């Protein structure tokens, strides 16, 4: 709403307008604070939309108005707390460090409690420019820190903005703790609260959240808040939503009447039953060429350690599908660079928290007439261990095709590994241990050959302009390899063929945070800021390989990084296209046998090219680029890292080849 300057002319115009009664409803909103308004307030019933439409007048305080004392002063007394103060006490008991939010009036009570009652510390308010950014930040933060971030949003428009990011987190089985404001009681809603009011606020995301509730009292709130947290972080983990009534937030309660905060601990993760684990161990020990396929296995830093122990114990290869940092990239048993061959050679395939096990052992040919084919050799046996068998929703189809397996253990993979390791140790004979050692040596050689091949492949187009993605990865690796680094986001690193995983030495759990989960673009930029926020207190150098299309969904997150001094190096993988979509359209042109030269129409981000450096600079972020000569890249990265080490974000825009 634009406001006019209070010049003499506009003042006169306003008086005339008021005399005609045209601003009756606006005046009604002013209430007793303005004398002018009192004279016309009864003239017409208020229309929610009208005040904004006829707002050339800004109510002014007059002598007459000031003379009228407030009739109903309402201030929470010293012996009271607001409802949202108590809510904050509960949130503090759950250990939240941050609350990411784009401000919204439906949670204004909680907002004020956070910054004043809570001192804006634990949780600290992180100002976001889009609810999707707030949720995606929480998504990335969890995967770096291992605990949820609180997110606050409007119950309607805010949640609608947040929903795609929430879906990503749900598909990725990452807990996001989302609170949304809503004025449940229709009798007390301000005009705007009707637009933002909703009967069942969480309905729109109920298909892809684990639990939600709308508490009607502070006792109800306390129980639901703790319950929501426990549900969210117990595998299978997923987002939860709590609807905070506006009046419940804002009203005062005598301190002595505040309910107790529940102390219920987080339940332990489900482990595989002993009989199934014993059977799995027997199959592993007996197998001649077992391979582990792992995806969301490592929930905690211990997950990688356990998997390394098990793989070394049985001399089995590991294919890391990269939704988590499951296995060191340069471990001799890592067979990810030859995944298809490793699966094809295997006589036992063990899937540990694999989101799409069917696609791990089958192929689907994407032609006009689609066909499928197994990747495995005849007679290969299969085992799965996953919480996916414990949690399925009907509507959204993230459960994938059903693969026939020989043993399915419905349990958390990481929590099941200790008992599986112990069972294997108990069952492995000296003869089998010799077999395991010989197998390990062969796998190590295969891994070495694959790594050498990757380096040779990286050398092609080494000096090309635009910069090859291999060159970009190699240049970045050269700058960070001696630092305590963390790759917080990289769209193409999610792919087994992604260059960082082929060229870099990932050997710490926080060095890779996985990907979006649901494939919703727009995750990368905010998740990298969230991951960097978590890494900040650990002193890690956070880097992201940032795709251009992803950044443009909500580039305001760069401002959030600058505003909150979140150190993050974002290196643009700027191929000036929604390139995956471009390939899909190309496929359709080919299938229809027409105009294959038009496949790029509608998917390119050119004419004009976006200047990402200028975009970043406009939001207070250090930036360089666009860089399309590979020779210029190393020095630019070095300068940007110096900025990041000072505690600030930096962007280096690199114009790259398409893949």
């Amino acid at each position: 709403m634009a406001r006019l300057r209070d010049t003499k002319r506009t003042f006169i115009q306003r008086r005339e307008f008021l005399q005609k009664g045209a601003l009756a409803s606006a005046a009604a909103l002013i209430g007793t604070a303005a004398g002018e308004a009192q004279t016309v307030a009864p003239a017409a019933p208020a229309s929610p939309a009208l005040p904004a439409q006829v707002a050339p007048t800004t109510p002014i305080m007059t002598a007459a108005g000031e003379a009228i004392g407030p009739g109903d002063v309402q201030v929470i007394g010293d012996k009271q707390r607001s409802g949202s103060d108590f809510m904050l006490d509960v949130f503090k008991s759950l250990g939240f460090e941050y609350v990411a939010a784009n401000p919204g009036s439906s949670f204004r009570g909680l907002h004020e409690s956070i910054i004043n009652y809570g001192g804006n510390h634990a949780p600290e308010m992180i100002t976001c420019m889009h609810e999707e950014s707030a949720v995606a930040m929480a998504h990335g933060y969890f995967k770096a820190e291992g605990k949820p971030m609180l997110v606050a949003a409007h119950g309607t428009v805010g949640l609608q903005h947040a929903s795609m990011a929430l879906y990503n987190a749900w598909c990725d089985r990452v807990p996001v703790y989302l609170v949304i404001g809503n004025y449940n009681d229709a009798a007390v809603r301000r005009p705007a609260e009707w637009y933002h009011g909703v009967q069942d606020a969480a309905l729109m995301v109920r298909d892809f959240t684990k639990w939600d509730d709308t508490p009607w009292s502070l006792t109800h709130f306390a129980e639901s808040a703790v319950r929501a947290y426990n549900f969210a972080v117990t595998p299978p983990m997923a987002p939860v939503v709590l609807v905070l009534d506006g009046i419940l937030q804002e009203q005062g309660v005598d301190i002595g009447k505040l309910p107790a905060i529940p102390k219920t601990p987080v339940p332990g993760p489900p482990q595989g039953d002993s009989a199934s684990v014993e059977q799995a161990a027997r199959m592993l020990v007996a197998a001649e060429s077992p391979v582990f396929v792992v995806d969301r296995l490592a929930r905690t830093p211990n997950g990688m350690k356990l998997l390394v122990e098990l793989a070394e114990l049985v001399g089995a290869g590991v294919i890391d599908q990269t939704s988590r940092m499951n296995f060191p990239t340069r471990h001799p048993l890592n067979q990810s660079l030859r995944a298809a061959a490793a699966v094809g050679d295997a006589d036992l395939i063990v899937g540990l928290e694999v989101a799409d096990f069917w696609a791990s052992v089958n192929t689907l040919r994407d032609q006009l007439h689609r066909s499928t084919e197994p990747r495995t050799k005849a007679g290969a046996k299969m085992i799965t261990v996953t919480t996916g068998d414990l949690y399925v929703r009907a509507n959204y189809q993230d459960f994938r095709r059903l693969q026939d397996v020989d043993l399915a253990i419905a349990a958390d993979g990481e929590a099941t590994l200790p008992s599986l390791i112990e069972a294997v140790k108990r069952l492995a004979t000296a003869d089998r241990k010799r077999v395991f050692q010989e197998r390990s040596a062969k796998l190590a050689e295969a891994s070495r050959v694959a790594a050498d091949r990757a380096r040779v492949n990286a050398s092609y187009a080494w000096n090309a302009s635009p910069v090859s993605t291999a060159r970009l990865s190699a240049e970045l690796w050269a700058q960070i390899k001696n630092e305590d680094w963390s790759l917080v986001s990289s769209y193409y690193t999610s792919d087994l063929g992604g260059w960082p995983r082929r060229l870099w030495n990932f050997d710490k759990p926080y060095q890779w945070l996985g990907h979006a989960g649901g494939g919703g673009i727009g995750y990368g930029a905010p998740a990298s800021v969230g991951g960097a926020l978590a890494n900040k207190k650990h002193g890690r150098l956070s880097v992201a390989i940032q795709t251009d299309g992803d950044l443009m969904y909500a580039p305001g997150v760069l401002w959030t990084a600058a505003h909150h001094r979140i150190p993050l190096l974002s290196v643009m993988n700027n191929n000036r296209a929604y390139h995956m979509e471009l390939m899909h359209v190309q496929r359709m042109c080919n299938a229809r046998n027409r105009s294959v030269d038009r496949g790029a129409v509608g998917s390119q981000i050119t004419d004009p090219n976006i200047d990402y450096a200028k975009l970043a600079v406009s939001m207070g972020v250090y930036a360089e680029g666009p860089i399309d000569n590979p020779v210029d890249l190393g020095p630019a990265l070095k300068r940007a890292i110096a900025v990041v080490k000072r505690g600030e974000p930096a962007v280096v825009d690199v114009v790259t080849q398409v893949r």
Partner: protein
Amino acid sequence: MSTSRCLGDAEAQRKSKSLCVSESLRLVITLILMLVTTAVAAQVRPAPQAPPRRQAPPPRQAPPPKRESSEPTDTKAAAPPQAKAAADATPADAGAALYKKNGCYECHVNDAQGGPQGPRLGPNPIPFPRFAAYVRNPAGDMPPFTAKVVSDQDLASIYAFLQSRPTPPPVKDIPLLAP
């Protein structure tokens, strides 16, 4: 608006077996280097879609194609057809533009070096008959390119472009690629 856009890892792996053809708008400097064996032609971009100036057989003699069930039986594919003459463009020049225009770069990347969705095509591409047969009737995930959408003549030009790709420096000479 946000939509699911990523292909799964499995799909990417499947696509890695694919092969495709067309032209490139970028990367022209090295084309002339390959044919003229001098380093003069840097910075010059070929006119898009300029026709080849001479016949465009593969510079190296290709061995007979290995018979595969997916290969066409048309023996015309065994040799590139005659290309049109042009004043100042080589077949590789024309091929660069066609490689880009027809979307080959989308999977096989700007310089034909390959990527997650398509293997490296050059330098030293597979023999032309096999190349042509695969483009017309690919066995994997690669979309087919019929003669209606990419002519035999254009295919030959693209092949010349692939042959002209520069050989990279040895890995041992690239410090950034040290293990």
